[in-house]
C-alpha cells in the first residue's frame, strides 16, 4: 500500500497508571478522533499497558529540527550549575 492513500497519521500517548505522565508509544492511521482512539486501544493497550490514551494529529505537533540541535541544546552542556547536584548543602539543611 502506498502512503498517499492512507488516513491521516495520529500520535499515540498512553498513561500506564493514574498520576503518571502519558508516554509517546507510536502512531496510527485514522480518519477521525474516535477511530484514532480505537485503533490506538487495539494496537497499544492489548497487554494491560495503560488506563488512559491521548491521540493527537501528527500534523499538529511542532518539532525542533535536527539543524537546531547545536543552537538549542549545546549551550547547556557547560553549565553544570543548572543541576541541583552542583551545589553543596550547608550542614544545617535537613529537608531539600
Amino acid at each position, binding site marked *: *500500500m502506498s502512503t498517499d492513500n*492512507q*488516513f491521516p497519521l495520529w500520535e499515540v500517548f498512553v498513561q500506564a497508571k493514574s498520576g503518571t505522565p502519558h508516554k509517546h508509544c507510536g502512531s*496510527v*492511521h*485514522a*480518519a*477521525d478522533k*474516535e*477511530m484514532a482512539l*480505537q*485503533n490506538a*486501544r*487495539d*494496537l497499544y493497550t*492489548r497487554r494491560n499497558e495503560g488506563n488512559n490514551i491521548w491521540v493527537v494529529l501528527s500534523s499538529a505537533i511542532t518539532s525542533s529540527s535536527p539543524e537546531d540541535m547545536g543552537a538549542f541544546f549545546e549551550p547547556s552542556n557547560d553549565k553544570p550549575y543548572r543541576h541541583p547536584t552542583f551545589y553543596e548543602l550547608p550542614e544545617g539543611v535537613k529537608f531539600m
Partner: protein
Amino acid sequence: MSKQTALLEFILRHADNNLILGHRLSEWCSRGPFLEEDIATTNIALDNIGQARLLYTYAGEVEGKGRTEDDFAYWRTHEQFTNAIITELPNGDFGVTTARQLFFSAYAYVLNEALQKSTDATLAAYATKASKETQYHLRHCSEWVVRLGDGTEESKRRMQSAIDELWPYTNDLFAVTSNDTTLIQDGTIPDLKSLKAKWIEIVTEVITRATLIMPDLNAFQHEGSRIGKHTEHLSYLIGEMQSVTRAYPGAKW
C-alpha cells in the same frame, strides 16, 4: 425435558454464535481495508472465540460426559450447530461485515447485560466478563456504520444495501424454544423476546445517526437456526474450520 438438557441447549446456542462469528471475522485477517482495521477486526474475532471457549467448557461441565471445548467445536457436524443464521453468512464487502457486527453486537450487548443477573453463577460471571468486550465491539462497529452511512455516495449506498440485505436474519437472533421456558421461569436466562425492544432502540439510534433508512420492522424474517436450520454457507465454514482436526485427530502443536 430436564433442566440440564435445556441449559446445555442454551449454552451451546450462544457458544456456537460466538465461534461461528469469530471464525467468519478471522477470515478478514490480512485482508482488512487497512492495517489498523485488520488488527481491530481480528481482535474482535479473538474476543468472540474466547467467549465461545468459556461457554463450551461450561457446556462440557453441564453435560457431564467429559466433552471438552474442542469436542464441541471440532467434532460436531454442521446440522448439530445451533448458531443464529446471521453469524454464518459470508463476509461480503466491509459494509456487510460492519452491518452484521452492528446487529450481532447490539444483540450480544443486551443479552449480556441481562444475563449478568442470572441465578446461574457461571453464566452471570461469563456475562460480566463478556459484556465489557461486547460494549467495545458495539462502539467500534457503530462508529463505522455512521462513518460509512454518512460518508460518500458510494459508502452510503453500500452501507444501506448491507443493512437491507441482513435485516431479514435479525429476528432469528431472538428465537426462543420451548426448552427455554423453564430456564426463564427460574431466572437462569432472560426472556430473549423481552430484549428485542432495547435492541431495536440501539440499532435505530445508530442507523438514524448514520443518515440511513431503518428497514421495515414487519418485513419477512428467516427463522429456524435453533432447530438446526442453516444456509448452505455453514457447512463450508465448518468443513474448513474442522479440516485440520479431522485430518490429524489428536494432533498437538
